[in-house]
């Protein structure tokens, strides 16, 4: 998607999309016009509706994703997950439930693992996001990625991005002291193929610095 210059500041009160009220008034006018039959009017309405909605309902979003800065215009309802997958084409981050119930969408925001499906994109304005695509250094895989391959910590691969992002964060959080602890602190990432024992092995290996 195209990157647009921001046109509205987002900090501070009521100066972001406050003009939406006016916009709504205008649309009711347009709606009234639309009641008049005639394809010309209808087409005009459709176009106008589109354009107005596009301009007034979007807000500027600055994100640094995997070290790359992005400036976007997004509707406030757009989640971080959708921005990554649909706007930035970073489809490594997965949608498994869209409700914070599976962990497939796990990314790091300023180094902390979160469910990107429950985070509005605008909440993350100005933050640094790391996704699975940003973990490897060029050709060199992150040790956790290597360990997942070595221990076969996945099958279909769909939950894998989230598992690996969680696992990398887990080591940093310091909850990898025992197998039991790893299992508990990896329980926010569902794997329907059932690769759990191999995932635990991969994490233990990286923790042990054996890769």
């Amino acid at each position, binding site marked *: 998607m195209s990157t647009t210059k921001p046109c509205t500041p987002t900090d501070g009160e009521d100066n972001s999309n406050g003009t939406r009220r006016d916009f709504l008034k205008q649309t009711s006018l347009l709606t009234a016009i639309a009641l008049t039959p005639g394809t010309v009017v209808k087409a005009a309405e459709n176009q106008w509706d589109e354009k107005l909605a596009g301009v007034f309902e979007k807000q500027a979003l600055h994100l640094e994703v995997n070290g790359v800065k992005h400036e976007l215009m997004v509707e406030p309802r757009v989640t971080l997950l959708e921005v990554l997958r649909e706007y930035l084409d970073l489809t490594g981050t997965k949608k498994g439930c869209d*409700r914070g119930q599976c962990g497939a969408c796990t990314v790091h925001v300023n180094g902390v693992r979160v469910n990107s499906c429950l985070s509005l994109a605008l909440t993350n304005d100005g933050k640094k996001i790391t996704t699975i695509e940003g973990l490897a250094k060029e050709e060199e895989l992150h040790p956790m990625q290597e360990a997942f391959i070595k221990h076969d910590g996945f099958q279909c691969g769909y939950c894998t991005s989230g598992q690996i992002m969680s696992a990398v964060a887990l080591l940093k959080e310091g909850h990898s002291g025992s197998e039991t602890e790893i299992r508990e602190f990896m329980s926010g990432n569902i794997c329907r193929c059932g690769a759990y024992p191999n995932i635990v092995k991969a994490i233990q290996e990286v923790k042990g610095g054996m890769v």
Partner: protein
Amino acid sequence: MKKDAIGDSLSRVDGRLKVTGGAKYSGEYKVPNLTYGVLVSATIASGTVTALDTRSAERAPGVLAVITPFNAPKVPGYQAGAERPVRGLKLFNDNKIYFNAQPIALVVADTFERATYAASLVKATYNTEPFETDFHKNIDKGVTPQKGNYKDYVRGEANAYKNAPVMVEEEYLLPTEVHNPMELHVTTAFWDGDDKVTLYTKSQGVKGSQRSIAAAFGLNPDNVQINSRFVGGAFGSSLRTWPHEIAAAQAAKLVKRPVKLTLTREQMFTQVGYRPLTIQKIGLGATADGKLIGITHESHSQTAVYEEFTEGAVNVSQFLYNSPNVNTLYKVVPLNVGVPAPMRGPGEATGSFALESALDELSYKLNLDPIELRLRNYTDTDPERNKPWSSKYLKECYQKGAEAIGWADRKAQPGTNKEGEWLVGYGIGCGAFGAYRGNAMAKIKLMADGSVNIQSATSDIGPGTGTSMVLIAADTLGIPADKITFELGNSAFPNAPTQGGSATVSSVGSAVHDVCVALKQKLYTMAGKPADSMEPIDYVAVLKQNNMPSVELTQESKGNPEAQKYSMYSFSAHFAKVHVHPLTGQVKIKKIVACVDAGKIVNHKTASSQMIGGAVGGVGMAMTEEAVFDERYGRYINGNFADYHVPVNADIQQIEAIFIDKPDPVLNPVGTKGIGEISLIGVAPALANAIYNATGKRVRELPITPDKLI
């Protein structure tokens, strides 16, 4: 010595793509001009939708179309008298509602958010009719399926168990379980003119999808391109083409732009099948020394009013144990529900839960070790078909599995084995699944640099098909695995069966084996050597000598006619060790051992993962999973991942996979029998039996949640 050979442990050939986020699933292809489709679901369980107010939705920003039963372009395959009729629900073809959450409209907009919001603005008016979703209330309305081999079965005398010295007669309930692969079902469809369509869709069989889409739109199959290279799990839910896939293509045709239709997780509970709620009655009769006299197995399971679903739930009782008298009955109960679909270990997983639980109950009545009971009724030939097994090493499974779980530490008397406050129990559950082989083709191309590319229109829903195929090719050609690429998930590739029934390695692996043999023979001939020569040759040199940049050939591989003489099955014995807390009902599954006779194991690494994964699936079946209806509305109350509990990491401790790893001499040239299904079959009874051994509480209604153990 070969560098890479069948029986190795090769890391996945697509592993790097999967750990870097580079693997593209069906909803992840960047298609220009993409639009988004969102389904609107009915909120009644039966009746008609009499009106749909779509005005606000149509006027909402970004909306391109709202497709409803009242305006949907006709799908040729849905029409009466269609040349190639589409089976199942004909979405938007009429205004009839058969089940709650049936889609009644499809909104297409330029963004996902806009489509989703507009979908919420569609308002339906219904004419509600009485509905039936209560399985228990309607069980008497069960019917014997007309299609397939589901007639009542009798061998010897029916209900002979009733006259046996020792008998068990119990009912077992398996609730509705939903496949719930992690990837949401998704289809991206776009047209090239009016008669060519491309779909990126979540499919276990691209050729099957191609045929179905062609039938739906009255197209030549060659004009339908299906891509499904990476599939984020399926477990049976993508064995067929679902109505929403057709709807995506229908919408794309209407708006003349690509449409991506993704189901929500909630819709995954109602639109793409499930393992049906099933009640089974088992009667077992035995002599005092544990010889089975009679087995009776009766099963009732739910199906949809608009389409019949069947599975072999009672089959296992007909052949797994030696009994002179066996009778089975299988009926389905049509309800106002979505249609079920085969789910990992279809039929057999359901049946073996009942049979293996009942057998365990019998062992306590006989005061006989459960393994000993199984040994006393072991059968060296198939008692149902009176044929020899192509191979059977189930006894070895009992023995190796028992050793690995520590069966010797099991105490026969429930409630007597303790570690601290925790009650300790051991259980066994066995199973079998038919070993199949379908006709499959593969195309091979040897390049001047010595690299080899193989193509076949199979799928990989997770087992590591590509990796196994590369290993078979490396072994057969005698070249390193990293010289070989295997491509799948594309309907333009040579024909292969749908990935199901644990038959992919058997079918496609045979084609890969055969095409490699054919290539080898061709190269030997080109080199002027006898085709069956054992002497190694340099393939690259042969190409060079013949001044050829590459050599390519396609081979079809068909089943062995000899196979008709045999009964062919994979067999498994699952063992479980559990800790149960008597006050709180909490269960810790300390260890599961999955010991399987699945013929030759091609790739130990991915095969072990598959066995472990099946065991985890079995843990879900036994302990946590149940889709719950509120019968007043005929609507699920837990259709989401927070309330429908699939196992999480903390539920799983140690799982050990053990393979007998002896080639089957009949089924296919590689000697495999299949592991995808057998990995789950028998897990649930092993756990239920272990819990009984620990607590003395026999849970006959899954899942075994804490409330059932206090």
